[in-house]
């Protein structure tokens, strides 16, 4: 009899303590799997800014994630207008690069997602600063955090550029939304046009066809899906890898009379 009484009591205590958990404690780490790049303060907005990404920043398409905290209370801010201002300072001039601002003013999983497509690496040529502009909806204050970032230049190029016969310059990069594997992979290509030193809008009026191949063997793979434009210069397709190793994604871009061949080398481990 006594034993069952003790058991019931134990159960009751457990239940009560479970139900009394505060919301804050049941949180999945939003930055799991991401790398913290750097952080700074947007003083005028009273906001601490953390910059996160899938990997260290490189020349190519970088999905980035911004986490905002109140500078004084350190509480997360999930309602704000965030925009980017990348700038490379070189000896003779400055220039920007393509980027995507977070589309919503509400954070997704406590983070504001966007992208920066760096078109050059940090080094002797110059250095990069990323301005993260924040309009804090709680305090109605606006400000900017100037973050120093280091952009590496990968040995296997993840950004390609070309100049057309009419003198227009384009930049192209790619990203795999999920970890690459043997079989069917979603892939997105980003195409930007350089309008000015500071403006690189996405271009959506090209037609793309894609042929992956393994240069060491000279064979391709079946049933790939040509990338088609979704929005803002992003083209989504599917690439099929029949085995691990070195692959080359051959793309042909056409717009009217303009035909341009671009390729990216990708290694699947």
């Amino acid at each position, binding site marked *: 009899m006594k034993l069952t009484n003790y058991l019931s009591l134990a159960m009751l205590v457990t239940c009560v303590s479970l139900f009394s958990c505060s919301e804050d404690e049941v949180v999945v780490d939003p930055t799991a799997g991401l790398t913290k790049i750097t952080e700074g303060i947007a003083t005028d907005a009273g906001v601490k800014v953390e910059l996160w990404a899938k990997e260290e920043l490189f020349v190519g398409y970088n999905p980035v994630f911004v986490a905002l905290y109140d500078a004084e209370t350190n509480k997360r801010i999930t309602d704000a207008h965030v925009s980017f201002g990348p700038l490379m300072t070189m000896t003779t001039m400055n220039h920007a690069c393509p980027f995507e601002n977070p589309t919503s003013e509400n954070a997704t999983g406590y983070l504001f997602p966007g992208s920066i497509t760096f078109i050059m690496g940090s080094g002797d040529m110059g250095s990069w600063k990323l301005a993260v502009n924040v309009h804090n909806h709680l305090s109605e204050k606006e400000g900017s955090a100037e973050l120093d970032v280091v952009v590496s230049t990968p040995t296997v190029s993840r950004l390609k550029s070309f100049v057309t016969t009419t003198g227009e310059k384009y930049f192209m990069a790619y990203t795999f939304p999920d970890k690459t594997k043997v079989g*069917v992979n979603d892939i997105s290509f980003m195409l930007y046009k350089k309008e000015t030193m500071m403006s690189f809008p996405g271009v959506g009026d090209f037609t793309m066809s894609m042929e992956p191949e393994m240069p*060491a*063997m000279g*064979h391709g793979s079946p049933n790939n899906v040509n990338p088609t434009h979704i929005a803002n210069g992003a083209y989504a397709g599917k690439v099929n890898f029949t085995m691990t190793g070195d692959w080359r994604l051959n793309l042909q871009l056409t717009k009217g009379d303009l035909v341009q061949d671009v390729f990216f080398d990708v290694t699947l481990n």
Partner: protein
Amino acid sequence: MLRFLVVFFVGLSFAHAQVTVPVDSLPTRLLSSITIQASREADTLQRFLLANKAMTTEEMLAKLQGVSLIRRGSYGQEPMIQGMTSGQLNVTIDGMKMFGACTDKMDPVSIYVEPQNLQSIAVQPGAQGSRLGSTVGGSINMQLLQPEFSPTKFGGILGVGYQAVSSGINAFTNGNYSTDKSAFNYSLNYRKANNYRAGGGEEIAYTQYEKVNVTLAGKWKTKQGFWSANVLADDGWNIGFAALPMDVGSAKARIAAIEYEHAQCHGFFSAWSAKVYYNSVQHSMDDSHREDVLMHMDMPGASTTIGAFWEGKMHPVGKHVFSFRSDFFYNDVLAEMVMYPEDGNPMYMQTWPSSARADFGLFVEDTYTINKTSKLKASVRWDAAGNFLHEGIGFDQALVFGDVEEHSFQQAKSISAGLRKQLNTRLVVEWNLAYSDRLPSLSELYGFYLFNRNDGYDYIGNPNLVTEKSASSDLALSFFSKHMEVSVSGFYKDLRDYIYPTTLTNLSAMTPGANGVRLYENSASAVLMGLDFSLLASFGKRFQIMSSMKSTRGIDAESKALPLIPPFSGNVILKYFVLKQISVQAECDAAAQQDRYNTEFGEDATSAYAVYALRLQRESGIKGISVACGVENLFDKKYHAHLDWGNIPRPGRNIYVNFSYRF
């Protein structure tokens, strides 16, 4: 066809020759397919062949009725019955299912059995072979030597041999130890051969091999039956395959089984036995000895099978004798390929994705004695099988061709009926009719860019394959007398949903230099027909003749010749006993020209050939030394058979000698 008829009539004329009645005559008759299940005994032809101690199991198979071999290397030839191979056949060891681990079929199950461990080989063409599994082609069951209960406590044999054509040696020993209640046997076999010389003296590269085979078996008497356990280990290494772009680096097989046989039953059954078994094969291909390799690759493969069966015979119920078998196996395979380009990262893929088949089967047969001279045998078999494509890289690879099911279920059925009638004391006629299905193999279902050296295509598996179906009829006429057995049989098979490759023009090949990609499909139909002939005769006390001939024709849905169909071929062996223990033998192996070939599968015409051998044998009695020596391919002819891939020449003149000591 005409040539065959000529030989046939010549053969028959022997049958009508006058024979005296000597004291010892031929001990057993050729086992017909109706009586074959009853016995584990080797028939006379097999005992004849087993006496040649250097012979390999494959060389023996090639001389059996209806059996041909596809040769890709000098060791590891793939058996074929009446034009059917591989997934169309059941090849078993003591009733145990075993599957190769090599995508290129370099490891047919017959390589794991040495003639030293063989009791007999039971070859049952067509649906008669469905006792052991769903099949359209038939079954080859290699029955291992069981430990013997004998008054001699311990006895055995030790032997060694040398073959000049390949500077090859073989050494073997086997022995039997017996007590009142238990018996054990062991065997150990070692073979090593270097490259052989073809007719004319040219050394043929990549024809070397080396292997070791060990078996151990035990048998224990119980009140009503026997327990037996056996293990087999076979390791081969550095095995050349001249017709393929790679050799075998290593091939390891392990087999273990436990069986219980129950005899003298009083209930329904007159005898039954149950067996549980396990076998595994690890195989890896190796191109490190080859020159001009475009890209070095490692190709390891593994195949593991566990299984069990229960079979038995009932006491006669009126004129019926029923027998049954229920069996199960689970076979899991994986074949991988890693390619190493000169610059760049290694490339990994699975040519057989990690996949498995589970198969449960039921077989029932009734032998009905109509009267003193006629017997009717009817049998049915039903298989339920699951095909499984395991999660992982292999599954992800398959998705490049579209959605794939993780598992699929299939059934196969077979039904056959045969009538055996003794026309008079010497003539027996047998007529069999059968319908049977066979399940597609895991390679045909899930294979991924398997390069076929013969036609130069990459093959892709088709998970949507249905069973291959065969309607067949065969008729056999046999003549038995005290000194002669002659048998002629003809078969006709109508195949539907025949599993045959289709070229896919929209896909590009993967293997550098390949002609394209082929997909396994159930094609409309195919027809296979043929005639088999065999003869055993003795003349006087000293003279024996054995001969077998086979002829097959295969036609696909478009009336073109099927690939890999052997031409009319046969052998004749004449044996003369100089003394009771000393005999000489003259042999001829011949084949006609094969003009019916299929160029889409990389075939060409093959010239006719005849090769001769002379053998001399001195058998010991119960104890003592036996010697065998002789010359094969006496006239050093350079030749190859139609089923030899790549037209690689066969060995030239081979002088060999074998010593064995029986203790």
